[in-house]
């Protein structure tokens, strides 16, 4: 298997007045050239996971265990400088809110130039500028706007700039954390198309973090579902939608209103997400799970293979398939 990124048993906690477990024992891989959709509610830990991949977890956040391997390199034990070299150059990140992701006092062009020169110090300013202009052109932004300031751009254009910055140095992996949540639907469609085109053009891998199942259905090859800091289920996109195995995934899909069926009442998942500072023992979903039984309250389920490239962490599946963990 062509794994570009291999995450093994990663845990991240936030220590303030209380300790919050944001990510618990997550094992996941991202393959070369694929789009992996990472879905979950707010607080499920998906953004934290993305940040941890980039090495952007800062105090009061701490990575407490686990390994992260990127293209054969052990990211957790790299020196700060080596990690900084990879960040932005081999792995790039796009953030949720384009309105606040750019430095208000810096021209757009200078964002690029500074960034390019930080990674390739021998680039002349002229050369960096032309790279910037090419990147902007790729995104549909006229080169004449290179000396404008962020506040002179619309939200959609700013997000394009962010994408441009992410791509400028040809990374292998892009992590997009809710890239379209702050944009209206029309702009969203444009941005998603842009991402698809660029991915094909530059043979990228994309980790798409979102809470929107619709985007996932449209963009992702495989889907990983997170709940309360743990992975609930991983499977190819069509499989997830047609035959979800984990009770949470099922419940999640049930909440999507179906335009063809005349439902009078919207489905919801009863209860609320667990507290990250004081998680219930056993499976994190058990308080809200209609199928929960005794064992669910006591033990945390390990992922169980349910098919090719599919696995789910639920005791219900135990009798069904042989018990061994495969990623």
């Amino acid at each position, binding site marked *: 298997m062509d794994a570009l990124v291999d995450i093994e048993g990663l845990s991240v906690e936030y220590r303030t007045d209380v300790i919050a477990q944001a990510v618990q024992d997550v094992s996941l891989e991202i393959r070369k050239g694929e789009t992996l959709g990472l879905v979950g509610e707010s607080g499920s830990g998906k953004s934290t996971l993305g940040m941890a991949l980039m090495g952007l977890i800062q105090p009061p956040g701490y990575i407490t265990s686990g390994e992260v391997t990127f293209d054969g390199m052990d990211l957790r034990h790299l020196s700060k400088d080596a990690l900084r070299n*990879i960040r932005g150059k081999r792995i790039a990140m796009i*953030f949720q809110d384009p309105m606040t992701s*750019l430095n208000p006092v810096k021209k757009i062009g200078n964002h690029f130039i500074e960034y390019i020169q930080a*990674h390739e110090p021998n680039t002349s300013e002229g050369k960096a500028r032309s790279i910037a202009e090419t990147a902007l052109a790729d995104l549909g932004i006229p080169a004449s706007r290179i000396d404008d300031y962020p506040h002179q751009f619309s939200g959609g254009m700013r997000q394009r700039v962010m994408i441009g910055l992410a791509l400028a140095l040809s990374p292998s992996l892009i992590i997009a954390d809710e890239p379209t949540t702050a944009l209206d639907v029309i702009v969203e469609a444009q941005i998603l198309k842009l991402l698809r085109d660029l991915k094909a053009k530059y043979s990228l891998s994309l980790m798409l973090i979102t809470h929107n199942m619709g985007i996932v259905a449209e963009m992702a090859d495989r889907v990983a579902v997170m709940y309360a800091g743990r992975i609930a289920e991983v499977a190819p996109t069509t499989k997830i939608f047609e035959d979800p195995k984990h009770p949470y995934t099922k419940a999640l899909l049930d909440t999507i209103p179906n335009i063809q069926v005349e439902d009078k009442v919207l489905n919801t998942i009863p209860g609320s997400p667990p507290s990250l500072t004081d998680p219930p023992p056993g499976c994190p979903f058990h308080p809200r799970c209609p199928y929960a039984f005794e064992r669910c309250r006591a033990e945390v389920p390990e992922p169980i293979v349910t098919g090719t490239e599919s696995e789910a962490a639920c005791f219900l599946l135990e009798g069904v398939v042989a018990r061994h963990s495969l990623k």
Partner: protein
Amino acid sequence: MILLSIVFIIMRVLPGNPVLLRFEKNADPALIASYTHQLGLDRPLYLQYFDYLWGLLHGNFGVSMAGDFAPVGPQILSRFPATLELTFYAFIVAVLVGVFLGAFGARRGGAPDESVKVFGILIYAFPVFFLGMILQLVFGIWVHLLPVTGRLSAGFQPTGLSINGVQYQTGIYTLDSLLSGNVVEFIDAVRHLILPCLALGLVISGVFVRMTRANMMETMRSDFVTAARARGLKERTVVYAYALRNAMLPIVTIMGLQFAILLSGAILTETEFSILGLGTYLIDRINFRDYTAVQGTVVFLALLISSVSLIVDILYAYLDPRVRL
């Protein structure tokens, strides 16, 4: 404008005839009448108001009541450079200390951060003249390291730029001595400035420390800082070009206000260190009951503060691309 009117009201209208205040009750009525006339105080009030404003437009700050009716303007100008020098260097001290300590605390967090916060509160609560005294005591009297009063040591004459044998002096001794190439005098002037500027600068830095710290803490958590880090920029770039640069913007807006506070402090500092500036001039004139001179000086200060505020506004527009005049 409003300020100028307020000054006029307080100094001229409310007390009635200032000449009466100046002299004892049993003074010769003829003398009082003559003074009153000379100062134009017997003219109708609204005319006096217009005279006042008109005069200011021409740089006329009134005439002294001290017996010779000398114009106040030149007196103010002769004492102004000392105050300017003091405030300028003190301001630099305040900003440097304030910003770097504030940024330091914001980045470090934990105990160093708390100490910085407390320092900010503590130093601002210090009466500037008390701090001045402590500094004088420690560095001037217990340890004879620095001079404690005045601007130049005995035997020094302030020099200036010589062009064709004519001396041009700004009155700012550090500047003048550099212009005339007199290094020894420059060092002497600087040595005299160290303690007063430290005292005034440190106290004022309190505000800058607290504001920088608060702004930095907030800015460091903003999206564009995280995004910058995600691009693999050096931490130093992220802190200075991204976080600090943006955190400082709101601080510029209060600099005008801080200048006013700086002037108040300067009055006290000049008194403490026996520096002959506008502050000591003001107090001096009050002791002589020279009300017109007091009025003129206060007006000058008000104009000064307004100008500084204006400059600060322009500076801010230059620094923040989101604001355009």
